[in-house]
């Protein structure tokens, strides 16, 4: 426990000082925080509950659109803002921007949670690959439909309010970094708290054998929906921040980007090791570093690299980094190996 405390304090310290140590990478660090949040929340479904979803992107995109719409709609007519052509004459004052952002983030967290509850009731009764394909369909449908709605910019996208001119040039990056880092800390604490309760055991029971879990008297549907709502809450928050950070929302390329973000969150969790607390964090960090390398050095070939990466990780590395570590150093994970077994293993080798 003591060792863990030192680790957490060190990470927190690093997180707070990071934008000042690496001022050039503020945006990258913010995106990393968002990616970790997405991987952590995906892991609640994919890792702990055994429901491999491609649909968390739905809440992410919904949060993005909601946050930006509220931020604009609170002070200006939304339809005129998103109208194509012409100069934008509306400018948010700093107070308006921050108020709008705050209210927008609350809405971006709450509404996806409700939506997750409703959709979850409808589709969480599906199992295995039917659930996976259904959520894949939901994500793509959301992207296609939002791309046809006029008031949120339809095909030409939605420009989020620009950051107001306060505190010099560096303040935008710092604001978004600390916002996303704050959400990351919040998510990590929440997920860790969840994983230390009976709720996690119930989720694991659902993963291991849902019929038996039901036979034991667990209302599996209720817990599945609650689990999805927790994910949706943080995905919505992450989406809202990402919308402000990118500054531009497009229906299929930024918000409901099943081909990128939707796959990334699955991949990050699997790369790190699903069903562990630290797996998604490690996976997202490694993945982000790799991705930035690919995107910089193989510009244009990044999707080819991504496709190959998916195939390689899924086929050859399904246990992830944490799974590999666990096999290598079982004692670190609190697994004790009987002396006799160890001797037998050594003899076998």
């Amino acid at each position: 426990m003591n060792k863990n405390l030192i680790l957490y304090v060190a990470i927190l310290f690093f997180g707070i000082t990071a934008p000042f140590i690496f001022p050039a990478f503020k945006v990258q660090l913010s995106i990393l925080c968002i990616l970790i949040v997405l991987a952590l929340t995906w892991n609640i479904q994919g890792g702990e509950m055994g429901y491999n979803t491609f649909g968390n992107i739905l809440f992410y995109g919904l949060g993005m659109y909601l946050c930006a719409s509220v931020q604009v709609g609170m002070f200006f007519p939304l339809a005129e803002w998103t109208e194509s052509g012409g100069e934008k004459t509306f400018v948010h004052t700093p107070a308006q921007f921050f108020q709008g952002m705050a209210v927008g983030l609350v809405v971006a967290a709450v509404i996806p949670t409700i939506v997750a509850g409703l959709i979850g009731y409808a589709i969480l009764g599906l199992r295995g690959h039917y659930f996976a394909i259904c959520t894949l369909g939901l994500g793509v449908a959301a992207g296609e439909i939002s791309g046809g709605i006029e008031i949120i910019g339809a095909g030409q996208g939605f420009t989020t309010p620009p950051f107001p001119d306060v505190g010099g040039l560096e303040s935008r990056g710092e604001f978004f970094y600390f916002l996303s880092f704050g959400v990351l800390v919040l998510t990590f604490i929440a997920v860790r708290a969840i994983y230390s309760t009976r709720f996690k055991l119930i989720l694991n029971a659902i993963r291991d054998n849902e019929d038996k879990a039901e036979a034991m008297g667990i209302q599996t549907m209720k817990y599945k929906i609650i689990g999805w709502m927790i994910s949706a809450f943080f995905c919505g928050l992450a989406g809202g921040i990402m919308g402000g950070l990118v500054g531009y929302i497009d229906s299929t390329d930024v918000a409901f980007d099943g081909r990128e973000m939707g796959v990334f969150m699955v991949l990050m969790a699997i790369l790190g090791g699903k069903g562990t607390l630290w797996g998604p964090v490690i996976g997202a960090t490694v993945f982000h570093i790799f991705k930035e390398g690919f995107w910089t050095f193989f510009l244009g070939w990044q999707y080819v690299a991504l496709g190959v990466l998916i195939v390689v990780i899924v086929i050859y590395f399904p246990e992830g980094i944490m799974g590999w570590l666990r096999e290598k150093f079982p004692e670190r994970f609190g697994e004790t190996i009987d002396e006799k077994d160890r001797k037998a293993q050594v003899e076998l080798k």
Partner: protein
Amino acid sequence: MDFMVFQYPMISVQACLDGILLGILFALIAYGMALQWGVMNIINIAQGDLVILGGYIAYFMYLYGIHPAWGVIVAPIIMYFVGVGLYKLVINKVVDRDLFISILATFGISILFMQLMNFAFGADVVLANSGYGTTFLFDSAVVLPNSKIFSAFISILFAICLVIYMKKSKLGRAIRATAQNARAAKILGVDTEKVYAATFGINAALCGVAGALISITFTIHPYMGLPYTIRSFMIVIVAGLGNLPGVALSGMGLGVFEEFADYILGTEFRIGAVFLLLVLILVYRRFKLSRKREYLK
């Protein structure tokens, strides 16, 4: 929203005929999906991308002055080897594993194919002009391009050939035996590895035929693959595995649905409507089954 379609009955006739001709093509792709799902127990997300690749083969023949209809012969031959190669490289490692692994791995292949096609053929929407002209029915109220009729005819021809092949030939019987019980087939001397490779190759060849026909009748684009995958998945879950008339009928139904969605909601919501229909079908079946405390398997 546009309800013209109900005021002018001829538009409905047009939509129905278009939808049926389109649906026959969907059914051909779905048949390939059902084949590999039944035999190898994998769900291939890259199905649509194989279709588009087949379309580009026909399109290239068109570019080099060969009539694109020959693509119907050439595309399946090339695609058969693409399919077998894909099986040898990737698919053989996911056959015995969890279905989600196959979904994710083929999703990776799908992204890879999309981007490679984008590099190789460019991001333009293209079509291979067959020059077949059009047929006018009911005093020119209904316009049917001959290429659509041609493509429906060829699809039916291929489907019939395949059914006969599966029934009569040695390989076809081996494939059906493996689908019933892979272990027993292995014991009785069927080389299941070869059967799997052939199944995936046949599936890819079917996709190649469908793709060549799509490039003649409609348009192709590197990123248009996923909707075809979703359509064929939808047709298979509605019809069930190994139910060929069901596949044909639900394919036509889907085609008609799409044409009407196109007229009523507008073209920009067409793909969205397809994906929403998938969700609705799954939700409907889930509630129907949950009354009996069962779930989709």
